[in-house]
């Protein structure tokens, strides 16, 4: 009889299902996985070290590049840490704008996840559908910050500027006829809030559409039900947060339990799974999209009624208006000081966490009183999730690895930092 030996297989880093640059070394017994050893760090850019050499405001842009599919939530965690240490009060309107964009970001992230997860498991259509909706939300990002992805919109003390009253329009060209452009511009006639409101009107039906494709789909269920079951106890032990923890049946959401900004003033529910398998995590995330939609609508209603400042008046940390710099000497000095030296934080340390689409995104900031952080530690949710990879895939088939990676919602920008 021939001798059967275990063999090791290399998965990635150049594999479309590796979601970037994951390298997995799998020890296989036939087609069953005995051990998985993820090799990470291929995207390590030393963000934390770079931040130690930059003024506080200059690092906001680096935060976008951590988890590059949920940009504004990363910024949120970072600016909140600084605000907490400074004891800075953020204007109410800015808080609502932040909450609204956090939820826009959550939908963006979950759409990206749903599309790629579907693609990995074999549902090509999902990818195309999800990217159709993402386009509208990216336009919101662009309208408010000028960038479709790396927005740098949240600033210490508020947000960069108020929501625009007009949406950018498409113009007719060689490739787009007048008729086509008119159709595209149809819902862009009003302000950003009108555009977003129109989106929230349509979005629940779109989620239904995704669900008709997947939720009762036999292939989808065969690929995800009872795959990588994690018990609530293990989920806590392994440091799971966000949808991964809730999928295992632990009702823990920082937005509810430790509310920040105005999350205690908006109405929403937290979905919780029961079995802790890939299918439950899918259901949790889909429901989160619906809830995010609800929060956005509440924010829009509030923002329409309540104009006001969107960044604090303390010009030691927030730049004065460009207009006032032309006539006011003090504003000019503040502007000059802010951009040549920055501002100093009191010596101390702070840990601030936000409910990022992937889980708890924490920023631990140590300051020695200088204008640059002494140490910045980013607690990325994906890092803890990926470390559980070995436990989650052990005993499963090779094809299930792909489903597990998809269900963990891995993005390497934040894991490797």
């Amino acid at each position, binding site marked *: 009889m021939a001798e059967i030996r275990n063999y090791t297989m290399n998965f990635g880093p150049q594999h479309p299902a590796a979601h970037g640059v994951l390298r997995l070394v799998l020890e296989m017994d036939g087609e069953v996985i005995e051990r998985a050893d993820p090799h990470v760090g291929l995207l390590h850019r030393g963000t934390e070290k770079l931040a130690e050499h930059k003024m506080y405001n200059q690092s906001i842009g680096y935060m976008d590049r951590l988890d590059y599919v949920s940009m504004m939530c990363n910024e949120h965690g970072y600016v909140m840490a600084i605000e907490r240490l400074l004891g800075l009060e953020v204007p109410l309107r800015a808080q609502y704008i932040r909450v609204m964009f956090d939820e826009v970001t959550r939908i963006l992230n979950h759409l990206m996840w749903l599309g790629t997860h579907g693609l990995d498991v074999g549902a090509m259509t999902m990818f195309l559908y999800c990217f159709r909706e993402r386009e509208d939300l990216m336009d919101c990002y662009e309208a408010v910050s000028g960038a479709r992805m790396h927005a740098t919109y949240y600033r210490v003390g508020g947000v960069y500027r108020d929501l625009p009253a007009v949406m950018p329009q498409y113009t007719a060209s060689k490739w787009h006829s007048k008729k086509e452009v008119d159709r595209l511009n149809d819902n862009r006639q009003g302000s950003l809030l009108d555009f977003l409101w129109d989106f929230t009107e349509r979005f629940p039906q779109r989620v239904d559409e995704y669900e008709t494709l997947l939720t009762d789909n036999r292939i989808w269920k065969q690929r995800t039900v009872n795959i990588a079951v994690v018990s609530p106890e293990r989920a806590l032990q392994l440091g799971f947060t966000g949808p991964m923890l809730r999928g295992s049946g632990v009702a823990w959401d920082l937005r509810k339990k430790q509310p920040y900004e105005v999350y205690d003033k908006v109405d929403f529910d937290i979905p919780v799974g029961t079995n802790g398998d890939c299918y439950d995590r899918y259901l949790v995330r889909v429901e989160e999209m619906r809830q995010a939609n609800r929060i956005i609508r509440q924010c829009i209603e509030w923002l329409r009624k309540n104009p006001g400042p969107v960044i604090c008046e303390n010009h030691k940390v927030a730049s004065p208006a460009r207009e006032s710099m032309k006539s006011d000497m003090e504003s000019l000095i503040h502007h000059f000081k802010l951009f040549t030296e920055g501002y100093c934080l009191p010596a101390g340390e702070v*840990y601030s966490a936000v409910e990022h689409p992937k889980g708890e995104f924490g920023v631990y900031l140590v300051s020695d009183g200088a204008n640059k952080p002494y140490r910045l530690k980013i607690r990325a949710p994906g890092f803890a999730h990926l470390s559980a990879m070995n436990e989650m895939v052990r005993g499963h088939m090779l094809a299930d690895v792909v489903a597990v990676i998809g269900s963990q919602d891995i993005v390497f920008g934040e894991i490797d930092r």
Partner: protein
Amino acid sequence: MFKPPQTVIEHAREKFGDYISNVIDAAGEVTLEINRKYVLNVCRELRDNPMFSCEQLTDICGVDYLDYGKESAAGVKEGPRFAVVYHLLSLKHNYRIRIRVFLDDEMPTVDSVVGIWSSANWYEREAFDMFGILFQDHPDLRRILTDYGFVGHPFRKDFPLSGHVEMRYDPEKQRVVYQPVSIEPRTLVPRVIREEGYGG
């Protein structure tokens, strides 16, 4: 923000006695400074005692205090160079506790808490990789984020931002080679510490 109530802090003081060297209550957060030798005792108690029940270890982070306060009037802060900071979360009571352990300068070593919280595994590997902190009895203490065959611990304060070596493709040898870095590190904005109330 969500810090443990005073009774819990008092209970910790009583329970741990000499294990704790300092309790810091600042910026709405509580930090317990623990003697290095008793990390395991304290952590196990924090997890299992229903008074604390910190079910989750959120984060482990190394800190290098080599240059702490270098630009200030008082100069560099005296004291141990390395520290490990643990962030714990209690879901039951809804609060966070931070633990800091100062380590020896020569051979920074501390007991691994993998046996208490499984999530410590990769966090400790990261702290080892970045700071060279050794975690005793860690099941698999390998480098995690840096390149295969990397030398040094990049997040230490005496490690330059630009690193020591750079990589390029050598067309003659037809392979990738390492060579000393050719870029000069430069600082556009110097680090300053201003006294309180500076600039009005």
